[in-house]
């Protein structure tokens, strides 16, 4: 572990500049350059063909849907779409690349010069997008050896199922002026991209599955300096929390180095899940990738008409959507801020309302019970194994009187534990409110018989004494009764 400086002290002396490169795996049916199945997983080397295996004589053909997705991503990020762009070959030898070059885009990307506004803690931050380009993923290496790590492996094994999966690389321009908010804004940007990919329907955007991968660039310059400092590029930053932590860590590490009169090595670093970065390949020995235009593919030249057609398919811009939903849902500004401040909750509440729940109940569950459970496991709301439809169903059961709020919480617990959908959990855990008047009536009669003095008081008109009897009945029913109905039954009998 490197020497670290106090975060606030670093920020008092230095201005950080942030840059993010995000790789998004598209969820197209087929790969970028061949008609192989692009769905994740599968038995090793079963989703391959001569093209993605790089066999002699094979040739690539561009997946039209992937180009559409790239253009839609670009438009959603406010980019210009290049009227003419090309693929290039990035030449380097590595056993996970079947052709020993990656087909990518170089100096002619399909989308460029975008802009995104992020709302973080009520403050708006503008992020400039440098480019969005198309490329292909590589195969998957596993390292054979005691540790499973590359450094001390005896040999490696390659599965090429993932080779050729369409990848979109989204690169920001250097983002300065964020000061102490740099980590939060970095995290918010990635959350925004993730939500946007889902809204566009172009990627499953599951970070834990590697659908969204982030490289984090950060440099420090003395306050007021005009030149940027030497930057590090941290790879393998694969959760929202990791982005924030990696940025904070690198800011503190670089701050310590610079303050001690040292300098930052421009290099690639690796994020370790334990919470620190370690050096990778040094940038001084940068590879010579020998880019040149891919001669096996022809230029991509989207017509203005096609671009407009794709623009029409874009989801509503986030700010506009937030305003519309707040009006529809009748939330106060304060309530809405909670929603916007909880990553993913806007979409989840919207979907829950779409599944039939009221906005206030949807908000209550997602920001209450479910947010609490997500926090417990350090997960994102969207990653909880429960769907908006299931939440709406639980609320429907509450509205129908089948569940109390307390019982509903048990149902959520069951669903999250993988016990099935709400109805199944209600059945298997026996959670439904007893609405059978026969069984309830028997319990009421038994309590009245057991406490004749209290019954007499009620008969005499002291209705408030009913509380004691209600409590006894609820206890007898182990909570699975509707207290209001119990009260009704008691008063009926003692009228």
């Amino acid at each position, binding site marked *: 572990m490197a020497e670290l400086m106090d975060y606030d002290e670093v920020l008092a002396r230095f201005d950080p500049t942030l840059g993010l490169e995000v790789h998004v795996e598209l969820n197209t049916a087929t790969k970028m350059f*061949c008609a192989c199945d692009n769905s994740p997983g599968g038995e*090793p080397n079963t989703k*391959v063909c001569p093209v993605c295996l790089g066999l002699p004589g094979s040739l690539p*053909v561009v997946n039209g849907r992937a180009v559409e997705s790239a253009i839609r991503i670009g438009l959603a990020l406010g980019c210009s779409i290049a009227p003419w762009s090309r693929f290039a070959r990035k030449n380097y*030898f590595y056993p996970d690349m079947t052709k020993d070059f990656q087909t990518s885009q170089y100096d002619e990307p399909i989308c460029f010069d975008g802009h995104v506004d992020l709302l973080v803690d009520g403050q708006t931050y503008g992020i400039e997008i440098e480019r969005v380009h198309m490329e292909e993923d590589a195969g998957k290496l596993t390292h054979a050896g005691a540790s499973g790590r*590359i450094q001390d492996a005896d040999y490696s094994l*390659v599965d090429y199922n993932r080779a050729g999966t369409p990848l979109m690389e989204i690169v920001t321009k250097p983002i300065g002026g964020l000061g102490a908010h740099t980590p939060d804004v970095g995290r918010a940007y990635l959350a925004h991209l993730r939500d946007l990919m889902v809204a566009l329907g172009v990627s499953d955007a599951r970070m834990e599955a590697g659908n969204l991968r982030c490289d984090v660039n950060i440099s420090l310059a003395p306050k007021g300096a005009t030149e940027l400092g030497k930057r590090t590029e941290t790879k393998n930053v694969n959760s929202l929390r990791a982005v924030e932590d990696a940025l904070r860590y690198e800011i503190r590490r670089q701050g310590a180095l610079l303050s001690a009169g040292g300098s930052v090595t421009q290099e690639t670093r690796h994020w370790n899940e334990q919470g620190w970065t370690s050096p990778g390949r040094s940038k001084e020995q940068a590879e010579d990738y020998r880019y040149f235009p891919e001669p096996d593919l022809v230029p991509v030249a989207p017509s203005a008409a096609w671009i407009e057609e794709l623009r029409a398919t874009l989801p509503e811009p986030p700010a506009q959507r937030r305003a519309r939903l707040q009006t529809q849902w009748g939330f106060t500004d304060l309530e809405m801020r909670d929603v916007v401040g909880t990553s993913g909750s806007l979409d989840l509440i919207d979907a829950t309302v779409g599944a039939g729940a009221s906005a206030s109940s949807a908000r209550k569950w997602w920001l209450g019970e479910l947010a609490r459970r997500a926090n417990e496991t350090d997960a994102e709301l969207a990653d909880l194994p429960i769907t908006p439809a299931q939440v709406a169903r639980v609320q429907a059961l509450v509205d129908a009187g089948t569940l109390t709020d307390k019982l509903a919480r048990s149902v959520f617990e069951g669903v999250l534990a993988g016990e099935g959908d709400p109805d199944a959990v209600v059945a298997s855990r026996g959670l439904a409110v007893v609405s059978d008047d026969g069984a309830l009536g028997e319990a009421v009669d038994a309590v009245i018989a057991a406490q004749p003095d209290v019954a007499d008081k009620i008969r005499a008109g002291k209705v408030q004494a009913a509380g004691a009897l209600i409590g006894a009945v609820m206890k007898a029913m182990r909570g699975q009764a509707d207290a209001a109905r119990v009260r009704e039954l008691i008063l009926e009998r003692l009228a």
Partner: protein
Amino acid sequence: MAGSPIHTSGVSVALSTEEVARLAGLARITVSAEELATIAPQLDIVLDAVASVSEVANADVTPMTHALPLTNVFRDDVVRPGLTREQALAMAPAVEEDRFRVPRILGEEA
């Protein structure tokens, strides 16, 4: 019928054996010292011949990458059967656990 067969610039490019060794490394080819000594002058001769291209390649000429000006050649996003795993692995030098077995990867942390 006149005309010289090839333009040559007369400018000698002269690749050193060190430079050729670096290029061979970049191209992942082990080259012996003897081979280096043969290849370097041969490359010089070729490079000398090709140096002429810069004479006519002005800034106002648009580079031509494809013989014919095709654009937007796309494939529908429809899955088609590829190879079976047996076919995919049949020609591999080494296979283990249905994967291609490759020598250990040194000098990298990825």
